[in-house]
């Protein structure tokens, strides 16, 4: 059996655009291997060039179909494109059927496109870490634009789309009367709204409702980004070019107003905090054994209360840590 190639050896290959090396590193990042941390650190230092676009919307709103068309237009404009498609795992088995790729089959043979499916499994917060590691890997590997597709439910997923430079929120006509972006709590994070399936007769109404919604908080000013509402359809193909135009305009807006620096700081800040929380949580899971069972007994028997037990648990953990460090 050949020995696995060390992750650090894959770094120069990944940076030279070797897709196999990128694919391997993404798997190791996803598994949370400590072995690959130095490699990811190295790649992070060489990333920051790609334009990252988060695409979110309720299940079935047409995200994957849209991503395929958008990616094809990006390719036609002479740029390369990476896609990270995140699908929910089964809460029962932890397994998943990752179906987004089926809708992206026209990209399958294109050497300038890289599609990677990811499942939502893993510790809370771990998904955001792994998918943003994957973005760094594709970025350092030279992809010009990176699209992240995720279902807009749950804090973890919102954190992921917020990690894009441009956030696109997709609503479809006929998926209930409410504006889906409001329901999912993602109205505010949209830089661009898409109403998909514009070939359907009820699409206009969704467009009008969204525009009405957005006009309420219009502030004056030349430097203010006005969130456009773009209707798209796949068959007949329409609006996809407008969407790519809006994404490119948004990128230019971020650059010309200097807002991009603010976004980068915000994204970096969120990532640091999320990872720190993940580490603390894992540390806690690992160390809490021992004291925990005893405290549980006492809380169950009502000899102490849950709050006091939690405080006692944490101070015991802190003592452990300071002993280890001494």
């Amino acid at each position, binding site marked *: 059996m050949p020995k696995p190639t060390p992750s650090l050896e894959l770094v120069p290959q990944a940076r030279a655009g070797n897709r196999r090396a990128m694919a391997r590193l993404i*798997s190791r990042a996803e598994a949370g291997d400590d072995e690959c941390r130095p490699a990811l650190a190295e790649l992070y230092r060489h990333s920051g060039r790609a334009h990252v676009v988060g695409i979110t919307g309720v299940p079935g709103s047409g995200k994957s179909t849209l991503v395929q068309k958008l990616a094809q237009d990006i390719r036609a404009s002479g740029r390369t494109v990476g896609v990270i498609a995140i699908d929910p795992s089964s809460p029962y088995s*932890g397994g998943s059927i*990752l*179906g987004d*790729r*089926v809708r992206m089959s026209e990209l399958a043979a294109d050497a300038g496109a890289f*599609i990677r499916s990811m*499942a939502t*499994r893993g510790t809370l917060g771990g998904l955001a870490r792994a998918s943003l590691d994957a973005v760094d890997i594709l970025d350092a590997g030279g992809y010009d634009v990176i699209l992240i597709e995720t279902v807009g439910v749950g804090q973890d997923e919102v954190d992921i789309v917020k990690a894009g430079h441009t956030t696109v929120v997709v609503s479809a006509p006929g998926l209930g009367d409410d504006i889906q972006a409001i329901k999912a709590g993602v109205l505010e994070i949209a830089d661009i709204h898409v109403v998909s399936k514009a070939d359907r007769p009820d699409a206009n109404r969704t467009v009008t409702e969204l525009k009405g919604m957005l006009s309420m908080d219009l502030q004056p000013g030349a430097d203010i980004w006005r969130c456009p509402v773009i209707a798209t359809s796949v068959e007949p193909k329409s609006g996809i070019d407008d969407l790519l135009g809006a994404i490119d305009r948004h990128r230019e807006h971020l650059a010309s107003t200097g807002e991009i620096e603010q976004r980068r700081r915000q994204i970096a800040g969120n990532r640091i905090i999320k990872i720190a929380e993940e580490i603390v949580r894992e540390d806690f899971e690992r160390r809490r054994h021992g004291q925990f069972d005893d405290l549980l007994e006492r809380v169950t028997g009502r000899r102490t209360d849950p709050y006091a037990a939690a405080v006692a648990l944490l101070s015991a953990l802190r003592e452990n840590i300071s002993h280890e460090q001494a």
Partner: protein
Amino acid sequence: MNDDNRSIRVLLAKVGLDGHDRGVKIVARALRDAGMDVIYSGLHRTPEEVATAAMQEDVDILGVSILSGAHMTVIPKIMARLREESADDIIVTAGGVIPDEDIDKLHELGVQKILLQDTPPDEIVSSFRALVEARGER
């Protein structure tokens, strides 16, 4: 952070003309229920597309389902593309309708396991687990 986060990744692929995917979908669900991450290629893919997808997705196993009898032309193309992409560490299995006399030939081409059409889903789950275990770390 440990190996608990790692689950077996599988690409189930339909190649060529045949338009039946009921069987593949049943297998996909069985694998998911066993905790694996399953990516399905959709119908009518070319051997090259399937191999490239397996490389990008970095699956442990590429399961090719063929009912049309085209395995002897499809499998060599898949194996060749995997080698080109330096992804020949990916385990390839073939499933569907395969006549006895081709089984040895497919093994020679590097197919590690052949699962004929009537293989119960449980058996597919356990043989996929065994294949990944036998391969070891990569």
